[in-house]
């Protein structure tokens, strides 16, 4: 067994009186696609922010690639190899697609020509090859999601955090995205994704974590996790698992 890529130890984040993340610990090995699911407000995006460094944890530690990054700001964590996309896309609106992606590429390629070439290459890979010079502000929702992925990818991350990149896409767009995610994993990038589109999650992820009210309540292979009564209840409310087991429901 190789050394884990990411270890979270007792991570807790409070906003005022609200505990968004409550003592989360997990160990993520190198490679593969891991999913994080959970009902709305479970703290999934906050967990990503704690890993990527845009929020600091109140207690607990974040270990990445053999080092403690708990106190590092987001930009330093990007340098270490943590890339993320934003659930609400955050394009640099005044820049073209190529320039957007180049901002990411500059992290490993200080020279302009290298960064721009690298940006074009990556945009091509996520299916934005034809829109390199389009202003980012003019992109459709689906293209903006691709841009998020391209930018994060351009920083050449070891760990890529994808925050609901499939939300808001139509079924055929979702189908187009799946091979992109698989290709990342095949290249050796460890992918962690928050997703609500369940069939995509079942399809892509080898391992799932379930978050509810800031706590990890279950983990395991997708088929197992989705049968877990605790998980079903957290989604559908108390007693739902029992009702389902009785073969209940009237429609």
């Amino acid at each position, binding site marked *: 067994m190789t050394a884990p890529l990411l270890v979270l130890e007792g991570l807790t984040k409070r906003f005022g009186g609200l505990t968004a993340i409550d003592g989360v610990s997990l160990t993520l090995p190198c490679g593969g696609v891991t999913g994080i699911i959970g009902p709305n407000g479970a703290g999934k995006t906050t967990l990503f922010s704690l890993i990527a460094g845009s929020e600091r944890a109140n207690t607990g530690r974040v270990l990445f690639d053999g080092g403690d990054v708990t106190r590092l700001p987001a930009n330093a964590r990007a340098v270490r190899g943590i890339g*993320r996309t934003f659930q609400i896309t955050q394009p*640099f609106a*005044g820049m073209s697609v190529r320039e957007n992606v180049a901002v990411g590429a500059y992290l490993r390629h200080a*020279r302009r020509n290298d960064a721009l070439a690298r940006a074009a290459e990556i945009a091509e890979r996520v299916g934005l090859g034809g829109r390199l010079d389009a202003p980012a502000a003019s992109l459709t929702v689906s293209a903006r999601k691709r841009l998020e992925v391209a930018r994060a990818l*351009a*920083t050449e991350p070891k760990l890529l955090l994808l925050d609901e990149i499939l939300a808001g896409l139509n079924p055929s767009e979702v189908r187009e995205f799946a091979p992109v995610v698989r290709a990342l994993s095949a290249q050796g990038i460890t992918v962690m994704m928050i997703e609500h589109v369940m069939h995509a999650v079942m399809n892509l992820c080898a391992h799932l974590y379930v978050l509810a009210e800031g706590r990890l309540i279950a983990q395991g292979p997708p088929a197992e996790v989705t049968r877990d009564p605790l998980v079903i209840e957290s989604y559908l409310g108390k007693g739902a698992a029992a009702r389902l087991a009785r073969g209940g429901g009237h429609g």
Partner: protein
Amino acid sequence: MRPYLSIVIVALALAALASLAHSNTLANSLVTATIIALAGYGWNLLGGYGGQYSFGHAAFFGAAAYVDAVAQARYGVNAYAAFVLATAAAALVGVVIGYLSFRAGLRGSYFALITLAFAEVMRVLANAAGITGGAAGTLIRLAPSPSHFQFVGRQPYLWIVLVLVTLAMIATRAVERSRFGAYLVAVRENEAAARALGVDALRVKLQAIVISAALTGLAGALYAQYFLFVDASIAFGPWISIEALAAPIVGGLGTVFGPLVGALALDGFGEAAHAVAGRTPGIELALYGALLVLVVAVARDGLQGLAVRFFAARRAGAA
């Protein structure tokens, strides 16, 4: 070399204009306009590319103007050394103001407010302190000779400031085409997203304000050297903060030629206003204010953008 070709052409056009400016009035007007343009290049880097709107660039202009004058008048420092010292002093003021404000996370209105306050503090201090000559100001002794960085007539100054403006244009273009420039614009567009991509936003903003302060400081030092006099309201007064931001905005925010186009246009409008309304104080700045509102309202890319669109439309019409 292609990205710099347009700068070479503009520099040559300026040189042609300068060599035609035989009358002292015209040369004088051009010198002040291009000094404003230089100050505008400083503002443009931080405000135009970096999106951090300073309302107090007078702090940098004034610091350099005073250091240039006081070093020569009080300490007998060589004029060229004083000039370099003055620019460095402006950069230092930039570091201090930038470090304090950006570390405290001040943006938008707050950054505008605090820069304004810093400039005012410096104005009050310069007006009260002994070393600056207090309310009487500081005179640089008249000694026209190249070794004192003083010349007979306006023309030599015009050439000097044109060289500096050309260097400022080249520097701006170089920033545009560098990693630093890409990071700076990324921070302007979306700081959180830039951070997630590995951009150290604080560092990028600090670098920007230092270069910005140094450029505006160059303008201040040159101003002192040209008029051989500074006082608190010239050096740290609101007029220069306003002109340094009006030039790039009117000309074209975040562009290589914006500050130059804007400064020359504002100068032209100012002269026209004088011709119509006489030398009533206030008319010129009132017009600048109105232009500022008008440009923000109808031409976000400034006069330069307006011209580009106009010619593009004509070409489309002719075809």
